[in-house]
């Protein structure tokens, strides 16, 4: 949905996606190596602009560009969606970074801040293709202990894949936030704001 949520971290920030980012989305998600665990996109620039147009009217869906604070360069994409205001739950994903980016830790920290500080949710999940071992490992490295296997959950090109779902509840957030922020600060020393 069209939103105005901006979250500023130490070295990176999340800002709302716009039509001007369509080519960036294509460049990232058109990289087969980086996007093999995401749904494929189609239709080129026109298709991406049509997708964004539909996204702008989709409630409970917040799509962000990950931007480096020091130079304003776009480093990746991340979203939180399926926000359910009554249950106070959501899912985050559509997470992809440019090759060589060190924004992973901080972008995860920032999307959780969107979830728990801006949207005031009680819990948020992230579902990862089970074969995407390093991302599965990343979630566990964050300290997330609640996980479950969702068999045959994803479908890409007619092929079904298992998902690992990681869940963070509000009561877990403080400890996870402390860990992620500590690392984000350390990384930010190398991406000075001035």
């Amino acid at each position, binding site marked *: 949905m069209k939103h105005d949520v901006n979250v500023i971290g130490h070295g990176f920030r999340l800002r709302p996606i716009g039509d001007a980012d369509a080519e960036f989305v294509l460049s990232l998600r058109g990289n087969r190596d980086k996007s093999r665990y995401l749904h494929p996109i189609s239709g080129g620039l026109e298709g991406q602009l049509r997708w964004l147009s539909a996204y702008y009217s989709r409630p409970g869906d917040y799509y962000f560009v990950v931007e480096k604070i020091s130079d304003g360069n776009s480093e990746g994409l991340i979203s939180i969606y399926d926000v359910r205001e009554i249950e106070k739950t959501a899912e985050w994903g559509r997470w992809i970074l440019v090759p*060589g*980016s*060190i924004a*992973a*830790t901080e972008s995860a920290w920032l999307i959780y801040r969107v979830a728990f500080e801006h949207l005031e949710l009680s819990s948020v999940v992230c579902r990862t293709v089970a074969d995407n*071992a*390093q*991302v*599965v*490992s*990343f979630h566990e*490295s*964050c300290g997330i202990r609640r996980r479950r296997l969702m068999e045959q959950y994803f479908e890409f090109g007619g092929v079904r894949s298992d998902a690992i779902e990681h869940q963070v509840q509000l009561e877990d957030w403080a400890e996870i936030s402390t860990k992620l922020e500590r*690392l984000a600060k*350390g*990384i930010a*020393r*190398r*991406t000075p704001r001035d």
Partner: protein
Amino acid sequence: MLRAQIEECVADIFQAVLGLKLERGTNATRSSIAAWDSLKHVEIIFMLEDELSIEFSESQMAEIDSVEKLIDAAWAKYEA
């Protein structure tokens, strides 16, 4: 500090962070170790920096994708 001591330091850090025993001379890569994820990578880098009183740049952090590159980069920093 000798390069061999840096190798030992890296091995200790890999054991502590990844629970992995590095065999001497093996060049393990990030892509070959599922547990060497983005967050663990940062933890490994920070521990090595603390141990050797060095600091890697952003580009170096991104470029280090193997044990050998980590040792080479640390050795280059330490000698500088």
